[in-house]
């Protein structure tokens, strides 16, 4: 399938991701929305960089601006963790791509849940953040075992747990290909510019 995806000189390359191995950090709350991931007041930026310090701002910091010791991402054991395991329906709410930008800038490279909201999933895939949906039994195990070291293999779409048990997760084959090759999808679209021109020309009505 790789033959019909042609990288373009004009695309912005993403770093390819093949395998991600890390200990997990757990946020068991369900329906964690994009306003929690990155509150709107931090969206006045005009760049993609530097949003990690605002990630989960309301939960992560106390009123005086110091770290909230009760927040999972502040625990010493969570330091360097690249895989976030969250409750059902992670990333619901707004279309702000600042949410995956903030997670990536903080150092999170994958989010695992039983359900991930559509727009957040789409935005994540375009930035190399892995949105992984697992069944309830694996999810329960992960929630019960914070800090477990697990592996996500993008090529085989498999998660390996510490006891070497494996489970597969669903991912769109095109999205997987783009992750593995580090392909920005704008280049793919630009390679179809003749098709787009033809469509504009032949359609029966014009917008």
């Amino acid at each position, binding site marked *: 399938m790789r033959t*019909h995806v042609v990288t373009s000189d004009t695309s912005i390359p993403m770093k390819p991701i093949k395998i991600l191995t890390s200990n997990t950090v757990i946020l068991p709350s369900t329906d964690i929305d994009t*306003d929690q991931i990155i509150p709107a*007041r931090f*969206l006045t930026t005009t760049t*993609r960089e530097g949003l990690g310090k605002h990630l989960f701002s309301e939960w992560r910091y106390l009123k005086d601006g110091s770290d909230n010791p009760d927040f999972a991402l502040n625990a010493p054991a969570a330091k360097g963790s690249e895989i976030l395991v969250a409750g059902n329906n992670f990333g619901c709410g707004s279309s702000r791509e600042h949410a995956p930008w903030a997670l990536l800038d903080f150092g999170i490279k994958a989010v695992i849940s039983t359900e991930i*909201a*559509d*727009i957040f999933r789409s935005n994540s895939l375009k930035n190399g953040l892995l949105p992984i949906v697992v069944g309830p039994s694996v999810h329960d195990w992960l929630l019960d075992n914070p800090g477990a070291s697990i592996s996500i293999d993008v090529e085989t779409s498999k998660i390996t747990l510490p006891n070497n048990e494996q489970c597969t997760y669903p991912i769109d084959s095109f999205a997987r290909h783009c992750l593995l090759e580090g392909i920005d999808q704008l280049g793919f*679209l630009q390679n179809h510019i003749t098709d787009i021109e033809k469509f504009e020309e032949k359609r029966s009505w014009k917008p």
Partner: protein
Amino acid sequence: MSNTKRRTLYEKVWSDHLVVDESRDTPAILYIDLHLIHEVTTPQAFSVLRSLELPVRRPDLTLGTLDHSTPTLPVRTFKDLQIAGNDAANQVRKMQQNCQEFGVELHDFDSIHRGIVHVIGPELGATQPGKTIVCGDSHTSTHGAFGALAFGIGTTEVGHVLATQCLLQRKARTFAVEISGQLAHGVTAKDVVLAIIGKIGVDGGTGHVIEFCGDTIRSMGMESRMTVCNMSIEAGARAGMIAPDTTTFEYLKGRDNAPQGAAWKRAVNRWQALASDTDAAYDKTVSLSASDLAPMVTFGTNPGMVVPIDADVPHHDGSTSYKKALDYMQLESGKPLSQSPVDVVFVGSCTNSRLTDLQEAANILEGRKVADGVRMLVVPGSQQIKNDAEALGLHKIFTAAGAEWRESGCSMCLGMNGDTVGQGQLSVSTSNRNFEGRQGVGARTVLASPMTAAASAIEGRVADPRRYL
């Protein structure tokens, strides 16, 4: 798939815009007819275009406005713009520069049509049945009220559309939500959609495009239909749609960007064929009886945590998330919400800032006063609506009652433009999200209709509007 397959509204609009169909290995290339842009989710996309030396492919299909980080106090100078903070001011200026540089029409501070992106598209007649419409904002689902396929996208995708007028998309599953029965007095589209989200859950529509149908929807005006489709995303749906009918056509006729003359007749003929075929199959179906609905209010920290206004805060299985939500809201199971003192009332947002919304709130407030200690903000969805409301004298009703009457914008819906709800304050809001901190750090939000918001402003507590009708 056989050629005789009966198709839904969504499937018709989808297949009409396929530049390249999807395959197992690649998503479809979907053509976009209207790209709405605003200051918050576009600067990084324009930066990509600039670095790749790409033009905006179809500036004629791109329309810009200032709404999200824009103050709702009058802006005449850069200093006025800084009301919302320096970063917000810079973002607005960046939008003005980007639109000028790339030749995109922007409804700037001097435009009568400046306003919330999901208000001005329909108001201009740019939103039309059968179109594909996208915007870097999840409430783009609003435009589905016209039978358009409209959905929110991220900034990377904004860049894709600016550069190619296309998006890579997988076809969604279909979900019919049928609503039947006549609404009781004091019950509105907002209450209907809150009840739907309560029923199907905040993830009930994930992976689906909802089609709202049934006689309750048919008897709604366009502004009510927009309120319903606006909150599709709050059920997790990719988009919400309503088949166009004479109500749709009447609304659009004569608007600036609507087809005129012979083109209008051709367009209406085309639009009439968009409705789902009889017996078209949906992946999922839910029905709701609207005749026994009461005004609805949220009690938790997502729009699915909703009850009739006269009900107590419900008991639950005791999950941590539920408990966390009630703790945040400072509410207790088994107690009526109507006892909670209110600090702020907000009438506005892309959900409820259109003329009928303002009229509904004004009808209740007329000759009455906002309770002592309550701050009420009324923010029209566009400058045009502001003018229309002022022509009807609505602003005088609001200001005489003690409410603030503002310029158009997203305002208190998302606390990034200078309008915020204070720490710990309880707000009754006609907006769409009661997430923690959505309206300001520590703000507690109760989502409600404009009528419920107005009644709550008078009583200084969450109040049933039916006693004022």
